[in-house]
């Protein structure tokens, strides 16, 4: 593995920075074309209702209205997952949650479209609803969809239970029998939204000739193309999707919510259609993450050794079947080397918006519950929380609780760094507590395509197919520069549209810097091979006798020939005469993405008179394999920590008895603001991933996993009472005091 780097580890200026700070960057709602229409969506005011009839005639008759659609305008699709996505974009037969789309209008202006919505008459028959996970799972609950109950489950759970997973090894009962203290607790966490600043927005143009253009804010434009072409029944070659700049995704833009609607309206109206969600629509009808109800039981010896561990995780993911609790069950005990462990999970449907990924989906809540019990065990047994975690920590060779045996991992290094950090030994003020938690995420590889062109002036263009949600254009350019041996600013990386470069998976699973990085290095090597060939031709020696060193071709030894090195720029300058343009490309599906562990430490102060929690100091330690651009890595760690703090303290979807969402806006859905936070101190730990030529691990998701328990553990110490429910909003803390 390469160890000495010229470019990696430096902090060059981000390529998208100037456009973003000057307002020049084009986001989902920024694109307009002549003659385009504006669309609006009519949404269900009920938590669960049969759509008896929809009369759109008055809306259609309104001057300026060019198309009205309902669920009837969409033909059935064969693939059931695509059908769920379609029915989430536009209800068919039943409205399944407050905010579920039931009709849409395209008109000459936003005002006319809004007016037309009021003219659509929908007759609803209200049906019983359920929004709580435990109620939805209980026998007798109103079932969202028949016939989708997970195979092999009994009558003790309702038909809303669409998934069951179990991971682990050993004999947990034997494990608990060996314990000197067993703690068994139940936890609840609220559904939270990814909270990206940019609402979903798109511009769709689907002509009568079947050719389509779609501009949208997404984490994966190939995914958008595949899903939309399947729903619309058109060839994927005919739908070109361009990803706009993205104002945050965090997993929330790994599916579609409005694009099929905009395309269908455009098809019907014969004109381009722009559709942008309001913030209220984002909250009511795009996917938050799951809420959870969890039982955690851990046994420990007085010395701190875990003897047995059992988790039961019940997640609700909204109105359609989904599979997400599995990763909670896999993550729950991943940090520990355990002989007897079992983690079970149930996926449950409710009358809420269909969930979608949120940064390490499924892991933060499970790890919160486990790390809370770990903290309570340490407290009761008077053990040091970091020493105890070190005693039980997973390391290279540990058989993980979810199956595989770990390769090189950096949990021990992160824990040791945390223990040695001045933060851990700093004195604590009154009403203040210090919490610690581990966190884990798998990280993925997956399909990538990269195309690289060497220009005649010695510069390089690189096209890749993954939207840049966290600085990937910079880190990809840096890896290309490192591989080619040229300066960073000679390279421009762009995110190509679906017609310009091969398929690429969605930007998820912290996979892009890892997977696109490998494809970039391979593409660079292909270009290097060609450049060596050109140099060999010029020198009239064998191509095999040329090697690439520091950005230039040179004879591989004295026997090969005596020529001065020929730089990339020199070779590129004559490329037109030596055989034409020089390029390199790579398509693949790299695996072996190394897992990433983190340890967070936080000091919280709780006002005993108001229950208000403030974050006084925060330090996050994370193994990232190799930090390509450390400033971006720190940003990822800080961002994850902040989102986790919000989850712990104030963020929640609040539903009334009527099943309606009470806080669809940033006023009452409280994400942390800048003044709520201290500077998050990010400590980068580099234990190279053997699966990447530069040692890279994904780093974007792990950081949201530890904060929930770290904050909760800090609160427990500050007030002397442990909270078992998130968010720990001031009324709840004051009541506990």
């Amino acid at each position: 593995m390469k160890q000495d780097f010229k470019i990696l580890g430096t902090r060059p200026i981000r390529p998208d920075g100037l456009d973003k700070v000057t307002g020049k960057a084009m986001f989902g709602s920024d694109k307009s074309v002549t003659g385009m229409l504006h669309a609006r969506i009519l949404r269900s005011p009920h938590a669960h209702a049969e759509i008896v009839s929809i009369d759109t005639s008055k809306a259609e008759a309104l001057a300026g209205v060019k198309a009205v659609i309902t669920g009837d305008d969409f033909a059935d699709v064969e693939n059931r997952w695509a059908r769920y996505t379609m029915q989430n974009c536009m209800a068919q037969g039943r409205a399944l949650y407050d905010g579920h789309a039931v009709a849409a209008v395209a008109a000459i202006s936003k005002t006319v479209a809004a007016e037309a919505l009021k003219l659509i008459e929908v007759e609803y028959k209200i049906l019983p609803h359920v929004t709580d996970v435990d109620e939805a799972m209980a026998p007798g609950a109103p079932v969202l969809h028949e016939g989708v109950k997970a195979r092999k489950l009994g009558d003790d759970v309702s038909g809303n239970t669409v998934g069951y997973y179990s991971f682990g090894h050993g004999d947990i009962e034997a494990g608990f029998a060996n314990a000197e203290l067993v703690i068994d607790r139940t936890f609840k966490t609220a559904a939270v939204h990814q909270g990206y600043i940019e609402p979903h927005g798109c511009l769709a143009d689907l002509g009568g000739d079947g050719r389509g253009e779609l501009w949208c804010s997404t984490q994966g434009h190939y995914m958008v193309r595949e899903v939309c072409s399947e729903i619309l029944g058109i060839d994927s070659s005919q739908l070109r999707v361009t990803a706009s700049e993205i104002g945050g995704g965090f997993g929330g833009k790994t599916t579609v919510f409005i694009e099929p609607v905009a395309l269908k309206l455009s098809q019907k109206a014969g004109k381009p259609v722009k559709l942008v969600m309001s913030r209220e629509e984002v909250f009511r009808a795009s996917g938050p993450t799951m809420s959870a109800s969890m039982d955690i039981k851990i046994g420990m010896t007085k010395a701190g050794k875990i003897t047995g561990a059992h988790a039961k995780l019940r997640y609700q993911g909204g109105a359609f079947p989904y599979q997400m609790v599995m990763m909670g069950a896999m993550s729950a005990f991943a940090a520990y080397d355990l002989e007897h462990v079992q983690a079970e999970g149930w996926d449950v449907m409710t009358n809420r918006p269909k969930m979608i990924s949120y940064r390490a989906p499924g892991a933060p809540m499970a790890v919160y519950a486990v790390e809370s019990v770990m903290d309570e065990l340490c407290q009761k047994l008077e053990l040091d929380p970091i020493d105890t975690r070190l005693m039980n920590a997973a390391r290279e060779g540990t058989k993980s609780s979810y199956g595989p045996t770990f390769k090189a991992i950096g949990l021990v290094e992160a824990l040791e760094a945390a223990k040695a950090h001045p933060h851990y030994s700093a004195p604590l003020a009154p009403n203040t507590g210090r919490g610690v938690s581990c966190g884990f995420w798998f990280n993925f590889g997956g399909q990538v395509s990269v195309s690289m062109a060497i220009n005649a002036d010695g510069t390089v263009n690189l096209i890749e197919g993954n939207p840049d949600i966290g600085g990937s254009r910079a880190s990809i350019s840096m890896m290309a520069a490192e591989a080619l041996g040229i300066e960073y600013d000679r390279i421009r990386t762009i995110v190509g549209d679906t017609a310009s470069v091969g398929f690429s998976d969605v930007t998820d699973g912290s996979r892009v810097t890892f997977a696109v990085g490998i494809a970039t290095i391979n593409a660079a090597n292909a270009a290097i091979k060609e450049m060596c060939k050109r140099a060999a031709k010029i020198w009239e020696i064998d191509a095999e006798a040329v090697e690439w060193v520091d950005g230039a071709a040179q004879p591989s030894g004295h026997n090969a020939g005596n020529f001065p090195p020929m730089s990339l720029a020199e070779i590129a300058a004559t490329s037109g005469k030596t055989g034409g343009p020089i390029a390199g490309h790579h398509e693949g599906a790299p695996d072996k993405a190394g897992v990433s562990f983190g340890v967070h430490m936080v000091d919280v102060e709780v006002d005993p008179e108001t229950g208000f929690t403030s974050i006084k100091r925060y330090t996050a330690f994370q193994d990232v394999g190799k930090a390509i651009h450390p400033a971006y890595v720190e940003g990822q760690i800080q961002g994850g920590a902040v989102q986790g703090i919000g989850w712990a303290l104030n963020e929640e979807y609040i539903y009334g008895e009527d099943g309606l969402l009470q806080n669809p806006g940033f006023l009452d859905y409280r994400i942390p603001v800048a003044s709520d936070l201290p500077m998050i101190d990010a400590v980068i730990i580099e234990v190279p991933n053997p699966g990447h030529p530069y040692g890279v691990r994904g780093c974007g998701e792990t950081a949201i996993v530890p904060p929930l328990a770290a904050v909760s553990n800090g609160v427990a110490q500050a007030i002397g009472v442990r909270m078992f429910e998130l968010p720990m909003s001031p009324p709840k803390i004051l009541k506990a005091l």
Partner: protein
Amino acid sequence: MRYVVAKDSREAVALLNTGENARLLAGGTDVLVQMKLGNKAPSLLVDIKAIIGFSDISAENGGFRIGAAVSGAEMGEHAGLKAMWPGVVEAVELIGSTQVQGRATMVGNLCNGSPAADAVPAMLAAGAVARIEGPSGTRDMQVADLLEGPGKTKLGKAELISSVYLPARPERSGDAYLRFIPRTEMDIAVASAGVNLVLDENGCVLEATVALGAVAPTAVMVPNAGAALVGSPLEEQALEACAAACEAACNPIDDKRGTVEFRTKIAGVMATRAAKIAYTRAGGQL
């Protein structure tokens, strides 16, 4: 929808009196948001920012008159006003973000009629007086007498508030405003308190006015809370009595922003903490 820039208050009043669904526009930080959300759809928008005097802060009889179009940021930058009524100014400055502060007005905050309006408890504690222009001329009214209920004031048909007067104050006086929100800014009060104190030469409270926000259908004066502080050097016993009086005056709702129990408890906490700040500002030594 029509948009008219009124040249003087007479024209503004006449426009309000046309029978159209008219709304006033000063800072616009409430009305424009309500229109955008589709909650209000006025047929006539009357802009009062260009009316002479509406954007002025002027000294008057030892106090200050604050025009209806004066923004929070302008109040925050006025050294004289800030020195005399720091509690009122800090209350106004809590409204919205820095950007909103450049537009939002204290009078708008009052007219919007929210029980949680930040400026209102501070104005009540200060004894602020509103100047009202209407079809039958000009009149003055205590701000405390203007409050009616959520979203409502006692302003009559086609009446508008042209300014608010904050009176002169004696030596050894100070005011303060505190609110509780679940984060540190950009939020709406769960409970709040404005306190205005005048001390005697010995540092004992001579006069005390306490008003609470977000714990009843309107901001409320709590005379018993003020009375609990009078005669005291703000010792623990007086503060406890003040908090108890505040709790007794609370009649809040249970909603997503706070439970009845929580709002009631917090109102007393905010009042006693604000009292301590006002006391210090008045020159008292805690």
